[in-house]
């Protein structure tokens, strides 16, 4: 009962048994090369094409199976059991099936979405100085604990309304996998904003007040707001704001990238302004950047307070099954080809059959994807709840789904662009409410989701107990219309309450 959705992956509980996608790519390629060489050898010995080709293809299938095994069983690193989260569906990432049976990425048929953790704002981002510490390393460097402890110390001033425990869900886990020294980018989902014909009335530049070291860079973000509450990212691109700097201590690029000049006077503050439009109709927003002493740090990726969640599809499992079937077919073809002419004819037939299976089976597997948790009306479609993902909401009044999610807490080493914590697979997901997109933008969630999460955690700790199934299968719980109509009298009384429960 604890898993509503089927799962085909495992995660590494021991990091020593984990190895990277680079390694698996090399090993897979190595098996493939061996396969080709063996095939050439067999072809040379028999002086025939069919046995060599079939042998090569069989070993290539084994290489594919090896890669699938890594994907299913090694790629994910366990971070410590199952965890729950509550928040708003920020954006969805449905699988992208294609007709290209050779595109391995399309066999990942998981249905993904990012959850904005309550009570974070969509614009909330972890500080650059923290995220930079876990940028993709040129060579694996064990993580340092100090950035984590520093962030924890500053957390009450940075994000006073978000509990550290909730935030820890998306942060690098030093104890579990810090020794691997992997890159960690967390989750960032660009929010293109909603369309509107109204002009911008204000621009917010984030982060609004930041210190950077001499020679370092800092990525700023400009968001324009309209009178109806809709907004748009103006950081870069054809409709970007114009960025200006008030002094030579820090320069600013057209894409909002601040660079503190190396010979700047220390403790100099500059004002960075983003302006949209011209003349009387122009609007602007500003941020202050102070240049301080310290080691030069390049601007890293952005990380929002989002947890990535994946409902698993069976694409890779199906691909592995298909590859095993093809391996058997090619092996049979190779053996039969030693018995011409009938064996050779059957071999050719089997080879053609196997290639057809790959041609049609690949796309079919890619289409066997996991279902969406969001509703009709949003661009990606679906069959669910009546609300939108935040970035798909067409107006500020559009309702965004609030959900409670529970899943296995893992680090996905193949997550793009680098690694990220995830709830993968999602075990269960429940809609708990909805909130207008405009409200979410300003942090008005409309309901206390923290206490709701606590209650749901308690409820599911009972619902998932093995004894619950026995209770629910008792005769008195087999009603479908109403207990008093098609139920039966068990131990519980259906009499009115002895005293009225106090109103809430």
């Amino acid at each position, binding site marked *: 009962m604890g898993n509503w959705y089927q799962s085909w992956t495992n995660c590494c509980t021991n990091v020593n048994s984990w190895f990277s996608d680079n390694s698996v790519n090399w090993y897979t390629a190595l098996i493939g090369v061996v396969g080709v060489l063996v095939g050439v050898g067999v072809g040379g010995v028999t002086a025939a094409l069919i046995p060599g080709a079939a042998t090569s293809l069989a070993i290539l299938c084994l290489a594919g199976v090896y890669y699938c095994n890594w994907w299913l069983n090694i790629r994910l690193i366990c971070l410590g059991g199952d965890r729950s989260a509550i928040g708003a569906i920020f954006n969805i990432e449905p699988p992208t099936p294609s007709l290209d049976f050779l595109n391995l990425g399309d066999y990942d048929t998981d249905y993904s979405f990012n959850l904005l953790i309550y009570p974070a704002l969509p614009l909330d981002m972890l500080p650059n100085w923290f995220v930079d510490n876990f940028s993709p390393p040129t060579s694996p460097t064990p993580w340092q604990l100090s950035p984590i402890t520093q962030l924890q110390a500053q957390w009450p001033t940075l994000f006073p309304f978000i509990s550290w425990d909730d935030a820890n869900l998306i942060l690098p886990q030093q104890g579990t996998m810090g020794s691997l020294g992997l890159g960690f980018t967390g989750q960032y989902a660009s929010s293109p904003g909603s369309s509107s014909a109204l002009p911008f009335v204000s621009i917010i530049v984030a982060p609004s007040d930041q210190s950077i070291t001499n020679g370092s860079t800092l990525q700023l973000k400009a968001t324009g707001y309209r009178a109806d509450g809709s907004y748009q990212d103006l950081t870069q691109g054809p409709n970007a704001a114009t960025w200006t700097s008030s002094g030579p201590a820090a320069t600013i690029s057209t894409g909002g990238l601040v660079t503190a000049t190396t010979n700047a006077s220390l403790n100099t503050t500059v004002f960075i302004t983003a302006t949209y439009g011209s003349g009387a109709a122009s609007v602007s927003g500003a941020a202050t950047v102070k240049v301080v002493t310290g080691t030069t740090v390049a601007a890293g990726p952005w990380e929002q307070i989002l947890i990535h969640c994946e409902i698993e599809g069976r694409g890779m499992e199906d691909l592995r099954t298909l590859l095993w079937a093809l391996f058997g077919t090619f092996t049979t073809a190779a053996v039969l080809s030693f018995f011409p002419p009938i064996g050779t004819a059957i071999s050719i037939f089997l080879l053609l059959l196997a290639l057809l299976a790959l041609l049609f089976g690949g796309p*079919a597997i890619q289409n066997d994807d996991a279902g969406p948790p969001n509703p009709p009306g949003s661009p990606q479609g679906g069959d669910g709840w009546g609300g939108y993902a935040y970035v798909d909401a067409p107006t500020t009044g559009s309702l965004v789904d609030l959900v409670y999610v529970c899943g296995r807490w893992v680090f996905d080493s193949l997550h793009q662009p680098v690694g990220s914590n995830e709830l993968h697979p999602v075990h269960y997901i429940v809609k708990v*409410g909805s909130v207008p997109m405009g409200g979410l933008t300003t942090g008005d969630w409309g309901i206390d989701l923290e206490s709701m999460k606590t209650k749901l955690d308690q409820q599911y700790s009972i619902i998932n107990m093995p004894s619950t199934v026995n209770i629910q299968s008792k005769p008195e*719980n087999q009603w479908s219309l109403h207990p008093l109509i098609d139920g039966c009298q068990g131990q519980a009384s259906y009499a009115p309450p002895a005293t009225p429960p106090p109103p809430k």
Partner: protein
Amino acid sequence: MSLLKQFWEFLLKLLAFIVALFRYLLGLKKRARCACPNPPPLKKPDPFLYCQYFLMALGYPVTWDNPDIFVFEGLVLVDPHQLKANTQYTVVARVWNSSVFVPVIHLNVAFFYLSFGMGTQSHAIGTSWTDLGVKGLADCPAYASIYWTTPATLGHYCIQVLLEPPDDSNWLNNLGQRNIFVTQPQSPAVFSFSVGNHVGPRVRNVRFTIDAYTIPPLLACDDRRAGIDRTRAVSKVAPSVPEGWTVVLTPGSLQLAQGEEQQVQAEITPPPGFSGSMPINVTGWDANGPVGGVTLTVEVP
């Protein structure tokens, strides 16, 4: 000939399969149904209470003496047909969940009162909330309650309860109504109730049906008969008014303009020598379905 026909049918089926396969490969997704390898990953709660309109839509007889709506004065359970004017009561709704997977935390429950009758205008009492567990566990049923001070004018009122969950697998079973009036006959027992048209601009033609349905007592779960599928065992036929009883409605049918309310008088005469309690359900219908109903109970000591 038969063989040729079979071959032709086979060819047609093969062609249909190939067309379906190509449409599927070109992007037509599989339909969401339980048999799919990956069914839609949605499970929903089903909060409900005794909902007359839903049960009638399924063809079941109903009582308007709702078993899931209670009224307390202080700590004492009282009959909702004997409420005093300008007095504070506690209205309680009992809420169930037919989902074994999904609880509803902070389930909003809206309470209303109406003039005694059918299709009359509702007035909000207020909204409360409760935490509803899953079927079979401790928080199911859950209770929501609210204080209600009755209007200054003495009268008979119906109480309506509407569940407003964030998500629901069945939105049709969330409205329950308790419309009951009890009297002792002065040969005959006389009741009156209102029938209104507050739903649209069209004239509403209302007719009435009368039955003597009450929710039957439950069998004990260890009774062998309780083991069978009770849904199929529940009768869809409401028992008619027993022999010897007469029920006269005046008028027998109504034509109501928009916003109009009319009084209907019911005269119920028990057979000579009857003692006990007899509920009579009067349900109003228009061209679109049920308008509402009342349960009129005659008590003879």
